[in-house]
């Protein structure tokens, strides 16, 4: 009886090829699809709040430091390239290069998070809080002199910290995942030309994080 049931449950022969992606890769793509909706919700909310705001929005470059963030954007793009080079090295069976490029990606990602932390520290020092502008701060003086709009600073602060904060959290998760993979798999020589799925899957996540930042950088910092 058991063997009959087992036979009935077997896939038809020849087995359908389906989506032709191994399980973890397919799972990552489904997860990334849900992440698209998550970030769309954030960006959609930002658009509604910005265009429905009770006053003008602060001009680009007045509150946020563009040179620092432009450098950070370039850094994330570089780390995306090093990640894809790590994948290509693994696919070519060059494990030495895989170790080098993956380490470079981890350093790039960690630097991005560090610079974002520095940016937050600098902004809080200048007086930008999620609730608006801190009294007696440099930005409060700009609001008082009319160079920054008083009515929208609360919305500006909350949307800025929410969007960049969630992205920063994603980058941090990516760095932690890569460190885990690097220590437990890459350094121990567990990847080969035939089996390097983990590098591809974590790479997909990393490129997605880069892609989201490309959109956020334009919307939050340049427009």
């Amino acid at each position, binding site marked *: 009886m058991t063997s009959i049931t087992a036979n009935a449950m077997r896939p038809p022969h020849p087995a359908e090829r*389906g989506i032709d*992606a*191994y399980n973890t890769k397919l799972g990552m793509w489904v997860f990334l*699809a849900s992440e698209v909706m998550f970030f*769309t919700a954030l960006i959609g909310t930002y*658009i509604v709040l910005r265009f429905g705001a009770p006053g003008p929005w602060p001009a*680009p470059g007045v509150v946020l430091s563009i040179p620092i963030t432009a450098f950070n954007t370039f850094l994330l793009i570089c780390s995306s390239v090093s990640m894809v080079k790590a994948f*290509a090295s693994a696919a070519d069976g060059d494990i030495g290069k895989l170790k080098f490029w993956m380490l470079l990606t981890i350093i790039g990602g960690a630097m991005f998070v560090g610079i974002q932390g520095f940016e937050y520290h600098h902004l809080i020092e200048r007086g930008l809080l999620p609730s608006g502008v801190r009294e007696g701060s440099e930005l409060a003086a700009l609001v008082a002199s009319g160079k920054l709009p008083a009515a929208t600073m609360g919305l500006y602060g909350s949307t800025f910290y929410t969007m960049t904060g969630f992205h920063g959290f994603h980058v941090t998760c990516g760095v932690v995942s890569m460190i885990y993979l690097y220590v437990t798999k890459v350094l121990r020589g567990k990847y080969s030309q035939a089996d390097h799925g983990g590098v591809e899957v974590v790479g997909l996540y990393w490129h*997605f994080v880069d892609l989201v930042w490309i959109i956020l950088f334009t919307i939050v910092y340049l*427009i």
Partner: protein
Amino acid sequence: MDTAHRQHPPYIRIWIYLALLTAAELLLAFKLPIPPNIKLILLLGTAVWKALLVALFFMHLKSEKWNLRILAMVPLPLAAILVCAVITEKIW
């Protein structure tokens, strides 16, 4: 997983494109005297162009099979509907 030694996309060339497009974005936003609406369209267009380069070449969607590409594209119309719905909220 495809284990054959395959031809990789030109990653360094894509990286240079991305760096140049980022520089172009900064020029557009702060240096070039362009009307705000045109600037907005150009900046969003450049951002989408950069995002497409990352998706197609770094995430390998260009070389993936169609069924996986469709899986990746499924949330895009849903995202567009969500954004359009919240933007046009005032109308209806």
